[in-house]
Each structure stands twice: as structure tokens, then as C-alpha cells.
């Protein structure tokens, strides 16, 4: 099953997929170019049946000056979780929103925006969701936002 997914994606997007592998049973990881993530997402949903969005996470790789955005989508009949990921530069964190693909990503993307400052183009409502209304300063989940240490450390 997982291999079929890998082959299908590879066959349809030979140039845009940077890395694709099966991590274990039921887990497929697809790394794509930044500007094609929308098309791959659409392909995953319509052709392969990954219709249930599970999470959208940002990861801050501060050493490489990059953010990674990971969309986890679950396929209800195939029973596979696909991780669709892409890297974007840290100084220009803009990505096309996938809300049109997975409507459920609405709040996930909004949260990623406020926690990392990643701007999702085409998202209907990017405003603070969880943070206090008067939040100022850098988004908290970036690595350069540092929490206090234990006093004895």
C-alpha cells in the first residue's frame, strides 16, 4: 500500500518531489519544493484519498535558517498517514495556504502563523488565536524565543 502511494506521487511529480520514503507501516513522508506544495496536496487529496487533515506543524531549524512546515493527512480507507513537508527560508516565511485543499487546516494554519510567524498566502483570517490579544514580540515557538531556566541550572 505505502509503496503504491510512493510510486504514484513519484510518477506524477518527478521533478518536484525532493525526497520520499516510507518511514514505517502506515507512514509516508513526502518532501516537496516550496511552490508546488499546493498541487501535491491537491493530488494527495483527490487522487490518493488523503482527505482527513491531522495536523499542521512548523519546525524551526535555526542553524540552517529555515522553517519546515509539515502537513499530516490521514487516509480513511487506505489507513496511511502522509507527511507532506516543505522548507522555507527563515527571513521570508511565506507559503501558499492549503485551506482550499483541506478545509480543516484553517485553525492549524492560523496557529502556525501565530506561533512561528509563517505567513500563509490566501488564508482567510490570519489573526491571533491562542495568544493574548496584546501579544508583542517574536512568535513564541521560534527557537530564539527563550524560556527561563531553572534557577539552579
Amino acid at each position, binding site marked *: 500500500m505505502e509503496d503504491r502511494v510512493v510510486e504514484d506521487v513519484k510518477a506524477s511529480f518527478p521533478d518536484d518531489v525532493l525526497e520520499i520514503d516510507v518511514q514505517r507501516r*502506515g*507512514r509516508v513522508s513526502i518532501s516537496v519544493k516550496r511552490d508546488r506544495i499546493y498541487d501535491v496536496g491537491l493530488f494527495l487529496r483527490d487522487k490518493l484519498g488523503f*482527505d*482527513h*487533515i*491531522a*495536523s499542521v*506543524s512548523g*519546525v*524551526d531549524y535555526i542553524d540552517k535558517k529555515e522553517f519546515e512546515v*509539515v502537513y*499530516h493527512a490521514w487516509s*480513511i480507507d487506505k*489507513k496511511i*498517514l502522509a*507527511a507532506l513537508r516543505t522548507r522555507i527560508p527563515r527571513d521570508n516565511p511565506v507559503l501558499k495556504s492549503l485551506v482550499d485543499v*483541506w*478545509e*480543516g*487546516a*484553517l*485553525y*492549524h494554519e492560523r*496557529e502556525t502563523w501565530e*506561533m512561528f510567524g509563517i505567513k500563509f498566502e490566501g488564508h482567510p483570517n490570519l489573526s*491571533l*488565536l*491562542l*495568544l*493574548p490579544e496584546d501579544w508583542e514580540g517574536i512568535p*513564541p*515557538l521560534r527557537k530564539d*524565543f527563550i*524560556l527561563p*531556566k531553572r534557577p539552579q541550572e
Partner: protein
Amino acid sequence: MKLSMGPQHPVTSHFRFILDVDGDAVLNFEWDVGYTHRGIEKMAENRIYIQNIPVVERINSYCDAIGTTLGYVEVVEELTGIEIPERAKYLRVIAAELNRIASHLYAVSLVGISAGFETMLMWTINDRELILDLLVKLSGQRITYTYPTIGGVRWDMPDGFKEDALKRLDYLEKRLEDYYKMMAWNRTFQMRFKNVGILKPSDAVKLGIVGPNLRASGVKADVRKDEPYEVYDRFDFEVPTGKNGDSFDRASMRLKEIEQSIVILRQALKDIPKGPIKGSPKGSKIPPTAPRGEAYSRVESARGEFGYYLVSDGKSKPYRLKISTPSFRNLPALPHLCRNVPLGDIPVIFITFDYIPLDVDR
């Protein structure tokens, strides 16, 4: 006109809704969440793996602490490759199912109080105490158990636990009949809840709804069946689904799930093998670091699917821990459903989704 509901409101608890109302009809629904946002994902990066167990537990220590910790513990075990003993797996299942029952009873009580059935609140909360007593025997705490740990569980079953548990389950099964009588078969209740807030299966999938709410719409999706973790593949149980996807289905889904939990518990209590409860018999030998890499674990908690996405850079603290919580994933449902509905139906629709604010905000 804009109407603001909460955060001090008998139904909404920590949430605030911003409603566009025209007379009695609600035109638009907007969430205002974040009243309990603590930044647990950031705090997790500040602590070592084993310290994080109680931290992530606070996400939903509200009702379903075992389901929450189980997901975290599993993702760490997957990354580090720790095998856990058979008995620990069974104990985890037992604790998780007991907690599921307690959580569903809590949910049913809220459904009752939102519709003005105070008896239902008193009965269910009282029966929940029976289950909490069992969990106290198992772990020593009423709500925040911190029971599963990396490499096993913290405590073994005390003597006489099995008999006690079976007795209480028998009692609870009888009580379920009463609940059905009071709720599901009750005309007044049906009038209030039937055909209110119908969520179609296609919409439910599209919006990414999880757990009993998704199953109430008729989609058969349960992590315990789809991707069995621990020993769920050894038990014989059903995944109940609803027909219409209305508030009534969602409310009674919780009762049906309690029934199935009792079925699982009976089997687990019968089959549980003897042996150690933690990774190594001499005590915990947990490696202090996790290898470089990433893992994603899925767990079916009472409110639905928990997803833990862990990225490790080989150090003793997580590099990134993303927690995808069921209530957060259920958020899009209400703005979708609450269009052109009477204001009086908002609490009914809201409460059947069983949102936990702490779970949304993290």
C-alpha cells in the same frame, strides 16, 4: 448585532463565542479561544523526556489524562525503540478504557445540564466516582494519574482490583439502562436534540472532525481498529456509528462507547498475563536521549484522536513536540453548523461536541 458569550457562562466554560445575531437567529459564529493557553509545546522543549509526561498530561488532565499521556509515551517509545512488557500493555489498556468511561460520563453529565436535566448530572457524576475510585486504586490520583511512563506503567494492580473492577462494571452496565431511559428514549430529550446541528459525513471528513463526533456522522474511523496500538488488536469489540449525525446521535454515541469499553475491559481483565510492568525488571533503564529523527503517534482518547509529532535532534530534550489535540481538530465544526440556527440551539450543539478548552489551547 454582535453578541459575546463567555468566558463566564454556565455552558461555555473557558470559551468565548462571538455571534452575529439577527433577532433570535445566529448568522455567524466565531471562536475566541486561548483563555487557557499555556504554551505546553514550548515548555516541552525546556524539559527532558521523562519530565514531559506530567506536562503533556495537563493538556487534558481535565478528563482524559491517560489517553493524553499514552500518546506521548508511545511516540517516545517509537523513536527510542523501547519494547514494553505484555502486562504493562494490558494495564495501559485497562487504565485508558476506565478513563474513557469516566470521561464519557462527564460528557453525558454536561449534555444533561445544558438541557436542564439536573438528575442526569447528579447520576453520571456519581457513577463517575465509582470509576475514579478504581483509578485511584491503580495510580493514587483522582484526575492527574501520570500512569503510563516511558517503558511501561508506574504501578501494578493492587490485590483484589480485578474483582472490584468487575463488580463495578456490572453495576455500571445496569445503570446504562437507566441512562438510556432517561436520555435516549426520553421524548423531551429527543425533541430537544434530534435534528439539531446535523453534520453530514462528507463535511465531517472535510473539516477534519475526529472521535465520537466523526463516528456519530456515520464514518467508521477509530484508531483502536485502524492502527491498533498496545494490544487493542486482541480484543473483540465494535465501533459504534451514528445514522444522522445530529446532536442526539453525538450525545448517545458516548453511551454506546461506554458499553464497548466495558466489553474491552472485561476481556482485558480476564486475559492479563503475569510479569513485570516496566522495561527492565531491575527498575527503569530508560535511555536519557532519543536518537535523531522523527515520529508521529496516534492514540484514540475519549474525545478522539491525539496526534503527537516529535522531532528529536539527539539531545535529552525534544527539539519540537507538536500536539494535535482532538478538540482543536473539532473546532471548525461549530462555525460550519451554527449558521441560521436559533440562539437557543447553540448550547446544545456546542455541548454535544464535548470540547475541552484546555485541550484546544494547550
